[in-house]
């Protein structure tokens, strides 16, 4: 395969022609959203340029602490995003479970992936570690948000059912029964669905990037397969943990359903 063809600056600038095109369409359609389009494009450009320089710096460091720091930063930003999306929808007891679930649910599969599957040398090699950490944390973030939201909704709308089950002698886990599996399904199904369409309906971004970079498609699919497995494991474990830790937050130690979500 040939080397990746470098994009000269003026050719990169030429790609902004598409932004101009959308701005013109927005103007003719009187959408009034011109600012939104160019601000988004500007932010995307600045963020990616900064990320490029940062990653370039990190890749040259090859230090375990640097790789771990980047992972923790990703997990931290993911948590802030999750808190924002779930604000006002969950109580503080459930909120407290998000950090341990996300941390364990993403770190363990990532460690397994780096040490056993990729067998990178060193295991924290930023070239592999950072992009894969980004994909697992990003997907787990979506999964945990969906799962937590569904769990909180179930305990709100299904209160009568859970309370009746407790009255009849059910343990809290049995009383919550179906709601736990529903929340797990709701959170994991998007990942499963994306696996179903992969390679037929769309080519995943990572694989496309590798092919553009000159990697043989046969080699890039291997990476895509193992990464999808890692994402599946990470999303599954993160959601499982939040459900197992989270449903207990709705009960006290006397197996009583708490009045409020918090």
């Amino acid at each position: 395969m040939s080397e990746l063809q470098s994009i000269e600056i003026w050719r990169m600038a030429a790609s902004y022609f598409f932004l101009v095109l959308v701005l013109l369409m927005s103007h003719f359609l009187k959408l009034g959203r011109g600012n939104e389009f160019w601000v988004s494009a500007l932010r995307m450009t600045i963020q990616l340029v900064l990320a490029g320089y940062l990653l370039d710096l990190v890749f040259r460091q090859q230090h375990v602490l640097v790789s771990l720091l980047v992972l923790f930063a990703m997990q931290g930003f993911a948590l802030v995003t999750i808190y924002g999306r779930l604000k006002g929808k969950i109580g503080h007891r459930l909120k407290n479970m998000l950090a341990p679930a996300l941390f364990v649910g993403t770190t363990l599969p990532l460690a397994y992936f780096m040490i056993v599957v990729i067998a990178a040398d060193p295991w924290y090699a930023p070239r592999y570690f950072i992009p894969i950490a980004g994909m697992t944390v990003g997907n787990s973030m979506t999964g945990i948000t969906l799962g937590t939201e569904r769990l909180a909704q179930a305990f709100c709308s299904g209160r009568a059912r859970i309370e009746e089950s407790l009255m009849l002698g059910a343990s809290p886990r049995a009383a919550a029964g179906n709601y736990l599996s529903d929340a797990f399904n709701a959170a994991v199904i998007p990942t499963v669905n994306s696996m179903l369409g992969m390679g037929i309906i769309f080519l995943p971004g990572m694989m496309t990037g590798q092919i553009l970079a000159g990697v043989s498609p046969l080699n890039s699919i291997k990476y895509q397969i193992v990464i999808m497995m890692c994402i599946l494991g990470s999303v599954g474990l993160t959601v499982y943990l939040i459900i197992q830790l989270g449903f207990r937050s709705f009960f006290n130690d006397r197996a009583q359903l708490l009045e409020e979500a918090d």
Partner: protein
Amino acid sequence: MEDVYRLREVSFNRVLTIPALNIPGGSLFLVSGPSGSGKTTFLKLLNNLIACDRGEILYRGRDILSIDPVKLRRKAVMVSHSPYIFPGTVYDNILLVFNFNRKEIVSQEKIEKMLSHFGLDGFLSRQTNKLSGGEKQRLGLVRALLLESETILLDEPTAALDEENSRTVYNYLNNWVQEGGRSVIMVSHDVSLAGRYTDGTMILDKGQIVELRQEGYARERTAVD
């Protein structure tokens, strides 16, 4: 017979205050009073679904705080005012509550006999979303009675039933207590009818006991028509 419940200086959230109450085992005890008087709260306290702010509740001589809460609820099963009926068939509902209690389900013959007694003849495989309000209430009662727990706590078990069906329920409970030596603590507005079957009555108003009659314990228990 040993008291099934003893309450001492119990209060809950300014909703209910019970200075002292003994409910003898093997009896049918009625709790009545206007809406908002604390009747349902009283049952929930006995079922350990909520915890009292102060005071102590003893179940068969043991502080309920020292009993595993799930095991206590299996001994003293509660049925709410409008029982939640699970999706699926009538049989699915009965199976589920047996699973909750980790008990082997009773024979189909026994289930059908009980359903028939409560006017639900041939309902075993019926989908619960096709049941009327009264049928749901009776199913809620049947699935709890089939568990044959030591004690049953019933919140308005006849609220959605006509007088004839109400009598059937009260008669069954009367016999259940008499033959099985079990205890029933029941909330009902209908003191005139329910009171004929009970051994003791407590009337609540604004969370306070305004009347406590327990003379029925002295009488010979007989079926009431």
